[in-house]
């Protein structure tokens, strides 16, 4: 037999066609199996390609030899007549078990070969992989970049314009507006500075402490107690660094400047946004005296013990977030110390130089 004839007709009388994958390699595949793929079928029927090595059907770029092998397995099974639905289903379920990367390649390849049943099968499998996962987990599974900005992630619905220039402009305008607002307010805020109570965290802590057995709770006596407790607290070695710097830093500046600084920093690096929120919760003061519901009356010792424990617990929990927050607060605290209490128009400039010093 001639070589050409041998190439096409094998002893079993099956006919074969030639295909070429994107890497250039050639292979022969059973015709009836390969023709199960609409793309190959179309190519073969319309152009007559595939009957010899030189006229091999070029497979789409997304089909590499390994994946093509899998696709052939699928086609070989499904094109055979006489299979029951149950058999097909069982085959499909087993067939689909592979790692995500391969599954993606398979979906992609099946799509380029227009093999819809396989596309559906693999797509459903991918959908199942995606379901129930967090965005981070999905990124992991599919090796996708984390390229949405923090801003976009936090406000996915707001990200209307994809033009980065517009977004940058918006940010600059917002910053400018805030600057102007700060400068305006600083001029008016000197008097208010006194009234500002920056011991918000301390407030909470001393409230906690004041719950402990302060049965004669009138407002004034509580205040006195608070001050005393605060000093005690500062002496506590575990909190000494954090508290002192924190207090000094915050006390040096009216709250509106906190806002200004905080916002500027957050503009600069939006990944700090969440930490800024934490800062906000800690730094803004409760200017208001805590109003106790009068629930300290006549605590019996067992109850008191319980309350002590609760109080400790609360304080511990409050402190446990601190290491992270403290980093931010400390660095900002340094800047704040630069700002004099008597405010002048140059205040804002000094804030910026403070940033540089970091």
């Amino acid at each position, binding site marked *: 037999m001639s070589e050409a004839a041998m190439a096409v007709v094998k002893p079993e009388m099956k006919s074969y066609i030639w295909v070429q994958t994107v890497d250039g390699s050639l292979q022969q595949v059973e015709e009836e199996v390969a023709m199960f793929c609409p793309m190959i079928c179309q190519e073969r029927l319309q152009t007559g390609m595939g009957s010899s090595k030189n006229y091999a059907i070029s497979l789409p770029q*997304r089909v590499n030899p390994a994946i093509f092998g899998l696709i052939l397995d699928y086609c070989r099974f499904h094109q055979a007549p006489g299979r029951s639905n149950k058999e097909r289903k069982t085959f499909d379920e087993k067939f689909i078990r592979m790692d*995500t*990367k391969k599954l*993606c390649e398979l*979906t*992609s390849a099946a*799509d380029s070969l227009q093999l819809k049943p396989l*596309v*559906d099968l693999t*797509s*459903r499998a*991918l*959908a199942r992989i*995606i*379901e*129930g*996962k*967090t*965005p981070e987990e*999905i*990124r992991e599974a*599919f*090796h*996708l*970049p*984390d*390229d*949405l900005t923090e801003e*976009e*992630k936090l*406000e*996915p*619905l*707001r*990200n*209307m314009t994809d033009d980065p220039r517009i977004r940058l402009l918006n940010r600059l305008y917002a910053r400018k507006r805030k600057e102007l607002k700060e400068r305006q307010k600083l001029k008016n805020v000197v008097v208010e500075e006194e009234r500002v109570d920056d011991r*918000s965290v301390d*407030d*909470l802590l001393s*409230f906690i402490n004041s*719950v402990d057995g302060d049965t004669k709770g009138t407002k004034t006596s509580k205040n006195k107690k608070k001050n005393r407790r605060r000093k005690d607290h500062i002496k506590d070695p575990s909190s000494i660094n954090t508290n002192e710097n924190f207090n000094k830093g915050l006390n040096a500046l009216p709250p509106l400047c906190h806002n200004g600084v905080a916002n500027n920093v957050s503009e600069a690096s939006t990944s700090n946004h*969440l930490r800024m*929120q*934490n800062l*906000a*919760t*800690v730094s*803004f003061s*409760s*200017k*208001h005296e*805590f*109003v*106790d*519901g009068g*629930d300290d009356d006549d605590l019996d010792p067992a109850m008191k013990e319980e309350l002590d424990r*609760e109080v400790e617990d*609360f304080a511990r*929990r*409050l402190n446990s977030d601190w290491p992270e927050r403290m980093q931010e607060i400390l660095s900002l605290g340094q800047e704040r110390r630069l700002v004099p209490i008597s405010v002048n128009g140059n205040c804002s400039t000094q804030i910026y130089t403070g940033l540089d010093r970091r």
Partner: protein
Amino acid sequence: MPRIAYAFPDEVLEHVFSFIHSDQDRNAISLVCKSWYEIERWCRRSIFVGNCYAVSPVMVVKRFPKLRSISLKGKPHFADFNLVPEDWGGYACPWIEAMASAYPWLEEIRLKRMVLTDESLELISKSFKNFQVLVLSSCEGFSTDGLAAIAANCRNLRELDLRESEVEDLSGHWLSQFPDSFTSLVSLNISCLGSEVSTCALERLLAGCPNLQSLRLNRAVPLEKLVNLLGRSPNLVELGTGAYTSEMQPDVFSDLSRAFVGCKQLKSLSGFWDAMPYYLPAVYPISSRLTSLNLSYATTESPYLVKLVSECRNLQRLWVMDYIEDSGLEALAVSCKDLRELRVFPSDPFGLEPNVALTERGLVSVSEGCPELQSVLYFCRQMSNAALVTIARNRPNMTRFRLCIIEPRKPDYLTLQPLDAGFGAIVEHCKNLRRLSLSGLLTDRVFEYIGSYGKKLEMLSVAFAGDSDLGLHYVLSGCDNLRKLEVRDCPFGDKALLANAAKLETMRSLWMSSCNVSFGACKLLGQKMPRLNVEVIIDERGPPDSMPESCLVEKLYIYRTVAGPRMDMPGFVWRMEGDSALRVS
């Protein structure tokens, strides 16, 4: 470490997304990366907006160009208890207008606690060529004229569901507006309508719609007419009867029974207004088929109630008045092993003395006997920690637990202790608990338990509970998945709120009324958190500016939003922002 993403054409990815339907998964997809965000937004078909003020219609329309289905919720849940004044908001009009021009192929609109006008209904009926589903749950502001427009123009309407809405009933003739050629109706719920509807029109409608599966009539449809209607809709799966009362006529009784039997798919029954006790047994022949039974409008006692309930061996959902009593619930526990949801409503909530023998024992029996029980709403007059602990241990698979002890601040009736330990056991054992309502005497301790154990908790309702800010602090700092918190009459104040301000941006909303939150704190919160709307509802018409900082706020509603201040606030709602309250009108 950057890796090369798997090469994937967009259309293929879109095809993968077409198999992913849950809102949570779609939201996760949109946050993966820029390209997935883009692809996802173009192929999103259905969206759920839990708070209509969290985002503007313009934004939604711009981001999702191909929506086919939208669900919106408006007023806070406590509006159901008349805590939200009239004209508070929740207007659907801007949404309908935006969608009318953007989505000619919109198919489904579902609204809950929103205000909708006849004009909007007319706009819906004329703007969406393939409109199919309209569900208006606890809505108001429209009349039967609007419904007439829907009936007349929506040729492909499948579902019209007015559950619990307040409809201005101008006439019952709107039903006749369905054209003769109309055949597509699958579900109709008009149970909230007050006045008569034309039975002729109903009969004609039913005759023309062979696919009708769910029909809930209103009270004005008499029992005698029900028989005819059932005859015309043999494929019914769900039926809400009208008034279930008539002079005792043996014909009617047997006809009714036969009609029930004739609906071979019938699985769910509701309605039963003014149910005459002796008509209940008409249901007996089909009781073993029933999976859902709502007898909460059957407001008279019946000696047949317990028997009926015990015969429904396949019951999954039961809503019933407390006439069922402990003994009835015990029988339920023995017979209905597939029970998943139980709601027991009070027959005499304002009476001072119990009028029925329903106590905590009933609920304990059900928790023991029904292994599939997941969802409970239970009104009663006494509860004990021991009972709650038993319930918790019996049913760790519970997902929704709402207990309403009728008298506020009632302690454990056996020990006179607060019910902290009992509810603590509930949150500790029921690890998948998503919704919880508290009642009875409760201290800060219960909130500590909730904060520690309620990690899957999404919605919490609190009234007359707690001692101090610690309570609120525990919940806000501990419940990782908390989405909605509603509080009334609790001594929660500024500290806990301000210390947990960041948490509020992770939640849908917070409602606090008659608590100890001051104007000053609200202003501070509003100032520091620009992505929250901090709305104060006040009784006096004057601006909060004139109020001293320490003055307490009567009603406070805080929700996260990317849409900024809302433009439709009435005179008594003020948005807090910095040193002065902002009014945008």
